[in-house]
């Protein structure tokens, strides 16, 4: 009798559970019309209100080009792994974000993850081609074929640090007056001593910045990818010599200063596992790193984190292959509708209505547009997707904090920024793909280990040895060969 009861109970649970799950999946299967369905994978903060915005978007798209779009936003930490697994499994998708720093363009494109776009651009992407400086396209080419669409936004790169204004004022700290790292550290020390529950700093787990001010620091242009910065060319080196960055003094000094900050308690002890965006939103920091400084960045910080900040650069702005191609969109090799995908992207590139709909939401619902063209976001119904993922950022309405001529300023900045000696060069890793895979892995491990090490020199020596065993010299030779051939053109 007892077993009968248990069995009945189990069956009931099953039915309840089964229906609950089944109903969750049902909403997907409701549209048997002739609209072409497209999927677009993006990186960012998943948006709760995305579905209602997409209703508007799809209304518009159905009319204009007969397309139904699904945008899937993966979290900052998840994106790389999610895209890797999709590539490995040959899953079909239409559009995805790719760059040197997320879903690494060079490695994924050279392994055949995306469709060549030259023809598609000619036929369906006319607006895209016309808006973008033709020289920049070099950065998106693998073996002579364009493999991704470069998004139009700030083309130069400058990394920086944002100091939260109220702490800067309180401790009389002027970022423009930093002459050596110690000046910054002193500020952190004051914050640490006197402010309870405030963490001095977040950042600098990537890049090589031995001198934390823009006058002194020389940037290294990376060749393989932003995270795989173990080989590079110095910005001021016109001989274009590829160097093992780990062996340089700059690298050592950078590791030293980060290590120092860790030990002194200026950085949270597990900062390498934390995500910038969430940390700055979720906790109280007095300073944090800015991966890309551009005109209007302080305004963006105000909107994003609700903080007044003073931002200073860690080096002079420059343009490089990496900076130009730091936001791109590719079409998946297994996409079933590449033509429609290109059409859609062309529309996003050229149509301000669609663009702002995707980035800011529905006017009147998620934001209101002032007569001066400024966007005011609705605090109760907040929605936003990263503006740089949608083609042409110059389409965007102005955000509070940005000056009215922000886009002109941006273009002007790009023109005056230094150009990297290897701007336009794209590395082909296939002759040394095994070495690259191994070195990438070792680099990821050791770069962070060097921050926590008690004996930095020992760790760095081990690091160098491991890299040597993995074949870094072979990679350097191959890269130099390719660069020399490219430069000789």
């Amino acid at each position, binding site marked *: 009798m007892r077993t009968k009861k248990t069995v009945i109970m189990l069956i009931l649970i099953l039915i309840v559970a089964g229906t609950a799950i089944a109903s969750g999946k049902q909403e997907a299967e409701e549209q048997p019309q002739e609209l072409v369905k497209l999927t677009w994978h993006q990186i960012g903060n998943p948006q709760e209100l995305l579905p209602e915005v997409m209703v508007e978007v799809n209304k518009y798209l159905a009319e204009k080009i007969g397309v139904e779009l699904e945008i899937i936003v993966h979290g900052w930490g998840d994106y*790389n*792994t999610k895209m*890797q*697994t999709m*590539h*490995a499994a*040959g899953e079909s998708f239409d559009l995805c974000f790719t760059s040197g720093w997320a879903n690494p363009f060079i*490695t*994924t494109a050279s*392994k*055949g*993850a995306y469709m060549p776009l030259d023809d598609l651009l000619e036929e369906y992407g006319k607006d895209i081609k016309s808006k973008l400086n033709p020289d920049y396209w070099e950065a998106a080419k693998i073996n002579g074929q364009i493999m991704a669409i470069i998004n139009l936004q700030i083309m130069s790169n400058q990394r920086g640090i944002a100091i939260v204004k109220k702490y800067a004022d309180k401790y009389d700290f002027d970022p423009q007056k930093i002459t050596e790292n110690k000046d910054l550290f002193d500020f952190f020390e004051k914050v640490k001593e006197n402010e309870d529950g405030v963490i001095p700093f977040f950042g600098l787990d990537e890049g090589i910045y031995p001198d934390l001010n823009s006058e002194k620091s020389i940037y290294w242009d990376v060749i393989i990818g932003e995270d795989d910065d173990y080989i590079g060319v110095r910005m001021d080196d016109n001989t274009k010599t590829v160097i093992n960055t780990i062996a340089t003094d700059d690298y050592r000094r950078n590791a030293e200063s980060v290590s120092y900050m860790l030990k002194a308690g200026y950085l*949270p*002890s*597990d900062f*390498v*596992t934390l995500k910038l965006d969430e940390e700055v939103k979720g906790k109280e920091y007095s300073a944090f790193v800015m991966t890309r400084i551009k005109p209007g960045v302080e305004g963006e910080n105000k909107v994003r984190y609700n903080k007044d900040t003073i931002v200073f650069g860690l080096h002079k702005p420059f343009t490089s292959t990496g900076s130009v191609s730091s936001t791109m969109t590719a079409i998946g*090799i*297994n996409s079933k509708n590449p033509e429609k995908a290109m059409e859609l992207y062309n529309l996003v590139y050229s149509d301000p209505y669609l663009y702002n709909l995707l980035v800011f939401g529905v006017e009147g619902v998620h934001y209101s547009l002032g007569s001066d063209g400024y966007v005011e976001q609705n605090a109760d119904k907040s929605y936003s997707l990263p503006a740089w993922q949608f083609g042409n950022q110059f389409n965007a309405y102005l955000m509070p904090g940005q000056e009215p001529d922000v886009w002109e300023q941006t273009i002007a900045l790009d023109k005056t920024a230094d150009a990297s000696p290897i701007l336009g060069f794209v590395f082909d890793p296939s002759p040394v*793909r*095994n*070495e690259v*895979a*191994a070195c*990438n*892995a070792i680099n*990821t*491990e050791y770069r*962070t*280990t060097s921050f*926590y090490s008690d004996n930095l020199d020992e760790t760095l020596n081990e690091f160098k040895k*491991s890299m040597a*065993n*993995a*074949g870094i010299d072979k990679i350097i030779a191959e890269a130099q060969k390719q660069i020399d051939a490219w430069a000789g053109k």
Partner: protein
Amino acid sequence: MSFLATKRKDSLIDRRGLWLLAIPALVITILMQYMPLPGLIIAFKNYNYGLGMWKSTWSGFSNFKYLFSTDIAARITFNTISWNLIFIVLTHTVAISVALLLNEVSRKAVKFYQTIYFFPFFLSWVIAAYLGLALFNGDKGILNSILNTLGREGIIWYAKPEVWKGILPIAHLWKQFGYVAVIYYTALIGLNPQLYEAAMLEGANRWQMAYRISVPQLKQLVVILVMMDIGRIFRSDFGLFYQFTRNSSMLYPVTDVIDTYVYRALLTLGDPGMAAAAGLYQSLVALVLVLVTNKIVTKVDSESRVF
């Protein structure tokens, strides 16, 4: 003679009842275990996402050559084997000791202890990882709090590989010993009481009896269990090395084993060819080991063979 011994036609029709019973399991096994086998060719190819498994170009043995030429193969192999050896020695020693101790107390007490010793076994490694986080968190963990009150500096646990040489065995033991102890304990209570009578009359105390009588009686069981563990020495408990360590890359020199490397190479580093090569290497060696140890086990106790 019984019907089971008579010659019955073994055709499908005659045996349809048994075939019916067997089909589901066979289908599932073929589907899940045999059909993926052709995928092993990935280990010999330059895997291209667009071309897929069949059309990608052959690379011969270069994946394997490369795997063994760098430090990678050496490190993951060394870690896999040495950890398993340490675990085997520790687990069985502790489990036997605990079983001996349990043998001395009342059945009620045994039930009580066993229930608690089983808790770690019931928990998944993901949950265990939370327990670890509570202890090892760099800024707030309990261990660091204790260190601080003792006036010492806290340690950033998830960044220091050396300390995990101690943490890993303890964690593995914590999770497994209850389970293994049960096996030994059951064996102990199954022993013939007469074995002890003679010793008792001679005034032996419990420690001597445990050492001189119980342990030797367990010898055969120990050999079988240890042999079986050695047969699995090339495989690792993924949960321990991935979840419990929170996949902290700084610990890889100590915690990276073959299984974690294959997983990473496939899903994070984007190198299916190398991952497949490492996986094949593991499967082949594991095969040899299992066959060898199985042979040894059969010699010891012929009932225990699987094949």
